[in-house]
């Protein structure tokens, strides 16, 4: 195999690596302005995104395709470290999209801001790790890829170095992240002991027949805990709120819109095979020397899913600060996404994937908008957003659309994804129906805290008008918002997100169809 045909499929990854190095090089030669460095990040992620979309079979871009068609969704040989699946490519696209939007929005930050090369360089580097996660087919490769992205994000959270809150958040994230990595690797080593391989396809081939029951269960147990941190599942969520709150808001947008999904996709990769280990019949799952691993894992993941969405929602209800509310809402969204793998059928995975895709536009963009609004001098409290909708209708309507989509209101992308996800759970029947019921009730509950923001934005008088300008009563924002908007980059990123929310909400079939087909292949290859 010549270098060209080996490296070709990795063009997006190579592009990102080159981008990272180039950005750090720019730093060395003294080019540090936000616009110039950011432009590089926007360019490489945008270009990589086009490659990935071409590989997904989008006809108009076919000339950009880098992976030979035969290599996508090919049945696993049981030896390779990586495999190209169309679902993996969709996740690559999601990750690149998140980074693209965040870089685009960050172009609008003051050009003299210190640390721009570090910010954009680490952002691209973290994305590189995420792309590798999406093509992993080996446990060790997967966990190392997660490490690449994690190490970059720890630094991202604390990159400003001045803000003690960010530093504290970075420190927390690092300690927790290290711990979770340890647990994941420990689980992987137990699985190696049980199966004699760390290759996911090989484990799938062995199936329910092989493996030492205790080692298998312990191994998967440690992996659940380790990955649960990355995916912010309850009860491993506590760090996430402090980190989301403490990190610079554009970084938070990246964490919530992009890097968290790494954990969810890792769940897809690791747990699809064992969930398909089904032994029919009733009685103890440990009977006859083998384990019916599937149902045990499904119940465990299902309980975690319900716990995550419920606790996330209830705590979101009580938050007074915008970022913390959005952070808890992110946690509850992770619960919805986990339903996909707990059910483990192709439609459910498709629903979860669509939910993840949607989340980039809903939550990622929401944080980007909050960052922009904060730059105007609006405070951290939800009450500080009083009257924003009437003072800045366009911003208010954009934010409202994101929140409505998060709540799952029809004609937004959030409705379609929840609908597909919950109906897949119903379709799977049995106790999965309860996952759908829990999801429905949680969606209804979540409307309250989203609606509260809408009310504050559109129906309450700005506090500044109640108090004389400059008064610190109520700790609210400025009496006059600065003229002008967010800057072109941020406005463009938010506009893209809003268009996606509405367009896919009204006409979901193209995106939904692609994801459904990919999920079908993923399950067929994984089985």
């Amino acid at each position: 195999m010549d270098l060209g045909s080996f490296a070709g499929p990795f063009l997006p990854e190579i592009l990102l690596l080159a981008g990272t190095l180039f950005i750090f090089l720019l730093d060395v030669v003294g080019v540090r302005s936000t616009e110039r460095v950011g432009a590089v990040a926007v360019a490489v992620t945008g270009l990589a995104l086009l490659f990935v979309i071409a590989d997904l079979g989008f006809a108009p871009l076919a000339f950009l395709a880098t992976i030979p068609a035969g290599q996508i969704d090919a049945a696993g040989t049981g030896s390779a470290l990586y495999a190209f699946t169309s679902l993996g490519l969709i996740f690559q696209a999601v990750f690149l999209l998140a980074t693209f939007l965040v870089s685009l929005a960050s172009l609008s930050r003051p050009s003299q801001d210190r640390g721009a090369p570090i910010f954009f360089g680490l952002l691209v580097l973290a994305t590189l790790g995420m792309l590798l996660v999406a093509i992993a087919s080996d446990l060790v490769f997967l966990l190392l890829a997660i490490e690449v992205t994690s190490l970059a994000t720890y630094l991202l959270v604390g990159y400003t170095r001045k803000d003690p809150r960010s530093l504290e958040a970075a420190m927390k994230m690092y300690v927790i992240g290290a711990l979770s990595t340890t647990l994941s690797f420990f689980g992987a080593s137990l699985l190696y002991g049980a199966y004699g391989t760390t290759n996911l396809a090989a484990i799938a081939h062995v199936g329910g027949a092989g493996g030492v029951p205790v080692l298998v269960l312990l191994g998967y147990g440690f992996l659940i805990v380790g990955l649960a941190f990355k995916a912010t599942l309850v009860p491993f969520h506590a760090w996430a709120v402090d980190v989301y709150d403490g990190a610079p808001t554009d970084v938070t947008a990246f964490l919530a819109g992009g890097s968290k999904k790494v954990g969810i996709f890792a769940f897809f990769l690791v747990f699809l095979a064992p969930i398909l280990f089904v032994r029919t019949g009733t009685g103890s799952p440990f009977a006859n020397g083998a384990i019916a691993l599937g149902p045990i894992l499904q119940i465990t993941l299902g309980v975690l899913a319900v716990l995550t969405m419920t606790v996330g929602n209830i705590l979101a209800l009580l938050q007074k600060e915008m970022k913390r509310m959005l952070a808890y809402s992110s946690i509850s969204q992770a619960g919805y996404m986990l339903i996909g793998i707990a059910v483990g059928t192709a439609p459910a995975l498709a629903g979860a994937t669509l939910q993840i895709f949607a989340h980039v536009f809903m939550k990622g963009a929401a944080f980007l908008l909050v960052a922009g609004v904060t730059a105007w001098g609006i405070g951290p409290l939800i009450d500080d957003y009083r009257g924003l909708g009437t003072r800045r209708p366009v911003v208010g309507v954009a934010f409202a659309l994101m929140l409505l989509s998060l709540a799952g209101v029809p004609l937004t992308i959030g409705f379609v994804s929840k609908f597909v996800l919950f109906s897949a759970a119903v379709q799977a029947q049995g106790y999965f129906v309860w996952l759908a019921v829990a999801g429905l009730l949680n969606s209804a509950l979540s409307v309250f805290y989203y609606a509260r923001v809408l009310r504050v934005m559109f129906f309450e008088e700005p506090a500044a008008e109640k108090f004389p300008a400059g008064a610190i009563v109520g700790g609210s924002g400025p009496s006059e918002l600065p003229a002008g908007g967010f800057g072109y980059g941020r406005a463009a990123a938010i506009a893209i997100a809003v268009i996606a929310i509405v367009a896919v909400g009204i006409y979901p079939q193209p995106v939904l169809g692609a994801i459904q087909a990919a999920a079908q292949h993923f399950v067929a290859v994984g089985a």
Partner: protein
Amino acid sequence: MAGLSGILEWAFLVPLLMVISFVVVGLAGTRLKRLEYGGWIAVLFAGAALVVGVLVAAAEMLSPGQYVNVQYTWFQLPPAAGTFPNGFRLVAGTLVDPISALMLLVVTVVGFLVMLYSIEYMHHDRGLARYYAELSLFLAAMTGLVIANNLFEFFLFWELVGVCSYFLIGFYYEKPSAASAAKEAFLVTRVGDVMFLLGIFLYFYTYALAGPGNGWAASGFVFTNGNQPFLAGAMGGNSTLLTVAGIMILGGAAGKSAQFPLHVWLPDAMEGPTTVSALIHAATMVAAGVYLLAVTSLFLGFTATDQLLIVAIGGFTTFFAATMAVVHSDIKRVIAYSTISQLGYMVLAVGAGFAMVGLFHLFTHAFFKALLFLAAGSVIHAIGTQDLFKMGGLRKPMRITAAAFAIGGLALAGIPPFAGFWSKDDILGGVYSQLGTHPLYWPFFLLAFAAVFLTAYYIFRAWFLAFSGDGPRDPTLPHAHEGSWVMQVPLIGLSALAVGSGLLIFWPNFQSLLLNGAGAAGIPPVFGPTDLALSGISVTLGVAGILLAWRLWGNGRVYVLPESSWAQPVRRLLLNRYYFKVGYDWIGQRGVYSVARAADFVDQFVIDGTVHGFERMFAALSERLRRIQSGVVSDYAAYVVAGLIAVFVLLLLVAPYLVTLVGGA
């Protein structure tokens, strides 16, 4: 009339016109000061919608029994082996059939007249562009709901109706009471909405997965298959689940239509402008609940248990709400309670199996209720108070309003030949014919009958207090005067309808319209005064109520209940609305909110407390570790251990046990 029938495919124009109106007025309204900030544009669009609505209704009435279904696939889920042979899709489409044509007529007529009336009534208010935009969207949502061809689309518009009502009830949002009323309406109907959603979910579950109903789910919940309605009987399905599904649908309808025990929001919704009240009470919001029940009854069917429950809720609400109307002094509140009571009649009719009769009452009620509200609005506009005890003698300066209110009152009281008589009599006759179904039908039938007397009494108490006597009891009130033609035209038009809409029942085509709506479901409709004795009793009760009202309040008299009277506690109970609101507030404050706070408490103290326990353990293990890390991080590390233990308990003990119980997937 094949030519006119073509219009049935164009029914979507009605919501579309109102959406355009919403967009135009919303965007440009503030700049159109000359046109009442977009008010006249909204009137124009509502007029165009009215034309389409009338044409659709006419086409359906001239050749009754058409089912015209137009639809597009919105998105599709592929079939999966075993559980889901036909796949599933969501469609967007319109269905015009006898009931949607009838409803479309009601909504467009009342909507147009209210819009026109608003031009003068709202003239002095601020935020008019917002008002007309929201009113347009409200009408768009309601008409969209009426012609939705599937349950999901129905729900979509249903939610939009709820949101619009939230905005409009809270129109005077600077007023704390208005903001709180809007919130209350939103929250209470939200309870119903969640039940409705669960109901859809259960229908989906039983019909989509369990048997011959598969075709129904695959088609995307549509109400019709070609020109045949889908029928529950033909679909099979688990009857227990269907009963629960029916109860959930009833819950949704009870929320929107303010039925016991979710009735609390409607009287408080009076905080919105009177025009909005007229619309909500007559044609939009509350009608949606009854319409949902009727549609479900006709297309999906209720089980016998559900029917009994619906009869009980409807019959009880009819009486319950009427008692509260008897004591209140706010003219709008009296009418509000009467709405709840009248909606009870409609629900009762649907429960007894006469959905079309219930819709007939909805049809007549829409006109006379809108009339009563607009007449009340005319009074409020003229003298600026809603307190009946300050009014008096208004019949002299406001002849048209007084006559309009009297016509509305007579229709409400069920005095022939006014509209309310025909439809209410049909309901009572219908329920009477079904009394053999279950012994429990009896008490609710009697309650509904007794409410006839109360209805006549309270509405004429209001009329005598406002219009009879020599002059206002409060001499400080401004001199009353009639509004201009903009306000008079709707009053006169609705007065005509409050007389004529009931008489339509003698038109054979209208009869067969109702027959076709119901006949397909195999339900015998009841028309006209089937049982003369029954009609005689109800009219006698109505007249007795009016006479009592005249005896106590006529000619400017004011009846004061003696302090020592046995009835004082009852009066206080009624004035406090059976303490329902207090109770709900208590549940909200102490119940729901404290659950959330308890969860927070658990998160902060119980879990953190455990965590701190671990932390001390860690600290003892390594004092040095403690010095490097911040305390909070070691909290988290301890948290990890706790979570790890929890996951392993779940994975190794709980999940295998559950698998043993329920078997593998």
